């Protein structure tokens, strides 16, 4: 390695810090803007960008909680949140019931054809909601589920099950085979060994799947927009952009508060499990 001069080093470090700072600013700016908007008084908020004397980045008047009061007191935001959590809980349960056995089966019991099938299952994750919402709207009205949260409970597992099966398969494969083998030598059946030995060891993997499925449910927009028409049955990702706008009037303070309050917890949760999600996407591509 060549020895670099101190000047060169300082330049390198500065460029590096500036690069990171620039990217962070780009990523965070809309969220910063949500924070500022959520707590500004209307007189400070709606000045108009042509007034260059008024700095929109700072609080020119004392911050206010008025927008939050409107959001929680006069809108259905809390109803949408609880709708979302209801759908989330149901979808997570269905996902676990389907994906845990399937993931284990693909990891341990199916051999060569299972490997091919697992790639097939993974590929169904690529079939987009924007292709399926039209046939689903037929199916949903055929089942009498239009405008019901149960339509989402029925359909959301179509995108949680494939990816979660794939994640769990990878997770079960990483457990040493001897774990079950020794339990089975001790007289346990295969199912008994899975229940008593494998699942308790898999809590981190199961937790990853729960978080991943939950975030996908909270993020989903297209199906929810298509199937739910009553304002009081909407999920948060549709209720906020569709129903928080009254007439043509945007209540930006409350809107941005709703976006912020919903986004930040998901981002924090997601960050904890990031490495596992990435491992799911990159299986096979990294040796």
């Amino acid at each position, binding site marked *: 390695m060549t020895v670099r001069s101190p000047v060169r080093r300082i330049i390198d470090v500065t460029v590096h810090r500036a690069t990171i700072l620039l990217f962070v600013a780009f990523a965070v700016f*809309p969220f910063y803007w949500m924070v500022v908007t959520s707590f500004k008084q209307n007189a400070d908020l709606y000045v108009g960008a042509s007034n260059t004397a008024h700095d929109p980045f700072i609080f020119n008047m004392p911050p206010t909680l008025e927008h939050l009061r409107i959001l929680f007191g006069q809108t259905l935001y809390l109803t949408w949140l609880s709708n979302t959590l209801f759908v989330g809980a149901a979808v997570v349960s269905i996902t676990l019931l389907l994906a845990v056995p*399937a993931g*284990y089966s693909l990891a341990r019991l199916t051999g060569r054809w299972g490997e091919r099938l697992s790639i097939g299952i993974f590929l169904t994750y690529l079939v987009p909601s924007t*292709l399926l919402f039209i046939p689903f709207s037929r199916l949903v009205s055929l089942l009498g589920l239009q405008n019901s949260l149960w339509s989402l409970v029925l359909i959301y597992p179509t995108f949680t099950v494939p990816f979660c099966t794939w994640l769990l398969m990878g997770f079960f494969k990483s457990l040493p085979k001897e774990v079950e083998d020794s339990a089975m030598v001790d007289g346990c059946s295969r199912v008994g060994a899975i229940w008593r030995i494998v699942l308790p060891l898999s809590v981190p993997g199961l937790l990853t799947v729960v978080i991943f499925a939950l975030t996908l449910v909270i993020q989903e927009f297209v199906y929810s927009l298509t199937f739910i028409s009553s304002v009081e049955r909407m999920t948060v990702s549709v209720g906020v*952009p569709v129903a928080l706008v009254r007439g043509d009037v945007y209540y930006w303070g409350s809107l941005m508060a709703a976006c912020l309050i919903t986004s930040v917890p998901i981002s924090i949760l997601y960050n904890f499990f990031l490495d596992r999600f990435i491992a799911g996407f990159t299986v096979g591509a990294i040796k």
Partner: protein
Amino acid sequence: MPTVRAGETIRRSDRRLGVAMLAPAVVYIGLLVAVPFLLAVFLSLTNSSAGSLNFSFVGLQNFRSVTANAVFRRSLRNTFVFTFVSQLAVIVLGNVLARALMKPFRGKAIARFLILMPWAAPISLATLGWLWIFDSTFSVINWILKVVGWLGPGEWYYWLGDTTLGMIAIITIHIWRMLPFSTVILLAGLTSIPSEVREAAAIDGAGTMARIFLVEVPMMRPILTVAVLFGVVFTFTDMSVVYLLTRGGPYNSTHVLASLAFQEGVLGSDVGRGASVAIFLVPVLVVLAIVMLRSSRQAEVV
């Protein structure tokens, strides 16, 4: 002999158990992904509408009327432009950012968390944030452009009321949203390159650029493929950004296939037409799936 037979019976019962454990998931996916997929193809060949369950078979008539439509052709072009431009930017910027994040520095965990936020936040709510940033009267971007003197007195950008500006806005959001995703995937690829490789390249006299393009990029090809493929799929099939930001406007000039399918099939209640617009997503997805399968097979062989 007896031990072999015992081993075989265990394996056979395992195989049966394996099928039983797999069946619910496979049946579910078959019923709710494969069948609707075929139904989408079928509906595109009918004059089905949302109000009634009666319909008749009209062959390729929907496709003929859809492809003759200027709005459709515009949206087909937009879909490719948005995907291509945003993914090109994402791969270039993602590589720069991933390399910057490779080096240790103070506050790295926080930086990583902040950079990841656009990907974790629900897309509809994030787009709403951008809708406010691009607002016609209160746009902070216009304020900045005024302050630095780019926009003179009386000059103004109506971000979402102008086709070119609207397209720039849409592409910006796609870049903003997909950049974290590609960055973390590329970062995983970069960290998987053993440090000996880097050192060996340096000893052999390779400069930084030579090392990046002749050693690291070829080694990262599988992971680059993954990042690009997922990025393309997510951008190509998205309707949320366009639907919430411009509603396809002004004058249907910023629609993409997915948002047009929604407008025709759900808002316009013409299920057949909507389905035939959405079907145009399929060829690209099939190509992507094949590329993905081939690269996964390569990864197995290597």
